[in-house]
């Protein structure tokens, strides 16, 4: 599978941020995009779509990005899905918690389309896709 043909799930409670990330993804060639407004909705989307890549915000109501990551890794069907955590802060404790929970990489807001593209490419290369 070409890395640009993947189906990407964007998880963020802010509709504008989902739109910003969608626009950035489109700028670098990713067009197959699904959105969810929190971790709970993301898990539903993961069960109804064949998602190849998750981009999730850290700080969300109902279910945080870290809780979503743990739920994904605990689900046999979803466990290997690449997971990029988006955070407004790269605080050391948060990074350690995300790495322990099995995050593939993280990206700190604000970011450009080029930086997002590099992060996705790095993850896809690391898992051989």
């Amino acid at each position, binding site marked *: 599978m070409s890395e640009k043909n993947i189906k990407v799930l964007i998880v963020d409670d802010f509709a*504008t941020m989902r739109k910003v990330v969608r626009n950035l993804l489109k700028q670098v060639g990713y067009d197959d995009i699904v959105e969810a407004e929190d971790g709970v909705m993301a898990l539903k989307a993961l069960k109804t779509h064949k998602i190849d890549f998750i981009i999730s915000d850290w700080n969300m109501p109902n279910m945080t990005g870290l809780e979503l990551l743990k739920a994904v890794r605990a689900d046999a069907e979803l466990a290997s899905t690449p997971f990029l955590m988006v955070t*407004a*802060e*790269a*605080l050391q404790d948060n990074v350690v918690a995300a790495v322990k929970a099995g995050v593939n990489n993280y990206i*700190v*807001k604000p970011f450009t389309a080029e930086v997002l593209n590099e992060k996705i490419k790095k993850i896809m290369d690391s898992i051989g896709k």
Partner: protein
Amino acid sequence: MRWLHDIDERQPMNVKFINPFLDGTVSVLKTMAFVEPRAAKPYLKVDNLAKGDVSGIIGLTGSATGSLALSFSEAAILKIVSNMLGENIKSLNSDIKDAVGEITNMISGVARKHLEAEGFYIQAAIPTVVSGKDHSITHVLGGPSLIIPFEIDEGTFVVDVCLNE
């Protein structure tokens, strides 16, 4: 150590708190909205009135406690969010309010990362947004806050920080 305390000697504000929020504001708006805000001289504010038409406010806790507010003029935020979304937005709609919350969140994140390097470990709450002419901003601490005024070609906005160790 230098302090800003010409309004209320009981609640001085460390000048170390200025640059992280100033840098965070410029960095976030430059990267996400492709504008280059110009900062003017900071000053202390003693009333609760906001300096703009729509404001985002976020609580901060940890080794320093308080809150951060951003208050935008209508013209400034319309330009900023239009650039962020790649759409021409003409009124203070739900996209604008949503974006103000996210911008506030991002600026607090960049600022807190800078403050971490200074030894301050601060967590942020979920931001809230208020709008309307002459709306008020109530900081958690209730004391004077530091205002950093900014302008872009289309309008003005302020960063309003009330944070104490």
